């Protein structure tokens, strides 16, 4: 049931009181409001015929009858439909005619407000300045780092001399670490394959619509575990694997790690 706006309820209340006062006060008005109703009704119908559709007149008439029989305690909904229609309608409309409330519709049910106002800023300067500074910092960092640290260039590739240990690039060292524990197919294909597959499907698996961290404890824990899993494997593979890919401590035997 639609909520009736307060000002309409108020107006209806006033009109109802006015009608009550008229009914109680003037005896001459009484037949008009109760018994005379049915006889009066056809008259405006013929005059107002071209203006008001018949079915609306019928509906208002039946509502009027109901109100008259219902007496002093009409239902809330009926009150809205009948109240602004006193026995002697006051001419309040623009042309001196009668106005009546046909229906009350909640605003949201017809109008759908799509454009909710958002707080926006211009990309220039607010975003471009940030991006420019970030790019500048990274360029400066890469440049300065490159001046002081050289990229490795070991001796020419030699198929007859296997370095000990032989390591993959650092981002694959997690996989190489798994190789020490599982069959190569499991370590090199199955586990990373499943991990990648689940990562791609994450939005379709996680159907929880909330973005709030407190509503996503499971998803966040799982992802953190997953990221930690690879991070720790990569760290072990990078720094704690020595000759023969055996576990060593870098502070005892040195680093076996090239970028």
């Amino acid at each position: 049931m639609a909520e009736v706006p307060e000002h309409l309820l108020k107006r209806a209340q006033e009109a109802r009181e006015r009608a009550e006062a008229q009914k109680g006060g003037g005896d001459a008005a009484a037949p008009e409001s109760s018994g005379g109703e049915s006889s009066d009704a056809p008259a405006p119908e013929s005059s107002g015929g071209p203006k008001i559709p018949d079915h609306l007149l019928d509906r208002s008439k039946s509502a009027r009858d109901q109100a008259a029989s219902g007496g002093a305690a009409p239902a809330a909904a009926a009150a809205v439909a009948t109240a602004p229609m006193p026995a002697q309608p006051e001419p309040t409309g623009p042309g001196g005619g009668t106005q009546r409330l046909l229906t009350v519709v909640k605003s949201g049910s017809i109008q759908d407000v799509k454009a909710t106002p958002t707080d926006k800023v211009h990309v220039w300067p607010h975003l471009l300045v940030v991006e420019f500074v970030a790019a500048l910092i990274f360029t400066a960092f890469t440049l300065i780092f490159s001046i002081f640290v050289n990229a490795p260039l070991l001796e020419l590739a030699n198929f007859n001399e296997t370095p000990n240990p032989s390591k993959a690039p650092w981002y694959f060292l997690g996989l190489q670490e798994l190789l020490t524990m599982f069959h190569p197919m499991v370590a090199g294909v199955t586990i990373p394959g499943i991990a990648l597959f689940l990562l791609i499907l994450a939005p379709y698996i996680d159907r929880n619509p909330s973005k709030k961290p407190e509503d996503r404890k499971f998803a966040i824990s799982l992802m953190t575990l997953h990221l930690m899993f690879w991070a720790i494997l990569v760290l072990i593979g990078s720094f704690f694997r020595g000759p023969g890919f055996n576990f060593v401590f870098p502070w005892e035997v040195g680093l076996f790690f090239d970028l």
Partner: protein
Amino acid sequence: MNDVQGSQAWSSIFRPGSIFRKGYSDSPRNRSYVIMNSVLYHLHPVKVKRHAVKVSYTLCLGGLSFFLFILLTVTGIFLMFFYRPTAAQAWDDIYVLQTSVTFGLLVRNMHRWAAHLMVITVFLHMARVFYHGAYKPPREFNWVVGVILLTLTLLLSFTGYLLPWDQLALWAVTVGTNMMGFTPVFGDQVRFVLLGGVEIGTDTLLRWYVLHVLMLPFVLVIFLAVHFWRVRKDGGISGPL
């Protein structure tokens, strides 16, 4: 100067509202023109939600990944002038680049370090997006594109790893491709296609070179375009938590 700025040639180059026509004065209209009149900045909308410019939300990671990609493209083009992808020449070319080419060592260093950095920023970008729940509807598909971009980034880095043709490159790639050879059913074929033969050799070098400088960047740029386009179509970056 006024004659030049009033000439037809000048006004044909710089669109209405360009700062090169009338100078720049700060107004909402001119702020919009800065974005609309630049082919590069036009990746952006004219306006974004206020929280979208907060560094503490995005940490600039996506933008920095893209910037590093540009930096890698520029430095990579420079390196291509001095490099031939054959087993007989590759290592010597790198050596000569480092010792005889002006800024050769510096540019190679930058290319190397920026590559490692890009793997890290792309990875962190993914983590950031996950923790913000930004992969949720309507952005599910853009997450998928993002995971593809992560994979392409790793492949780009890995294919570049072989190119110096030193001991580090050869044996790192040997370890990596041996793993891929264990793919069930068609593992040997996968390895054969990747290596251009049964063993790593000069054919592998050519193959990975083409993958590294042309094919993978080409594919990456396509997915990058979709990625950026979807960011805007899906309503900008995800809302505040």
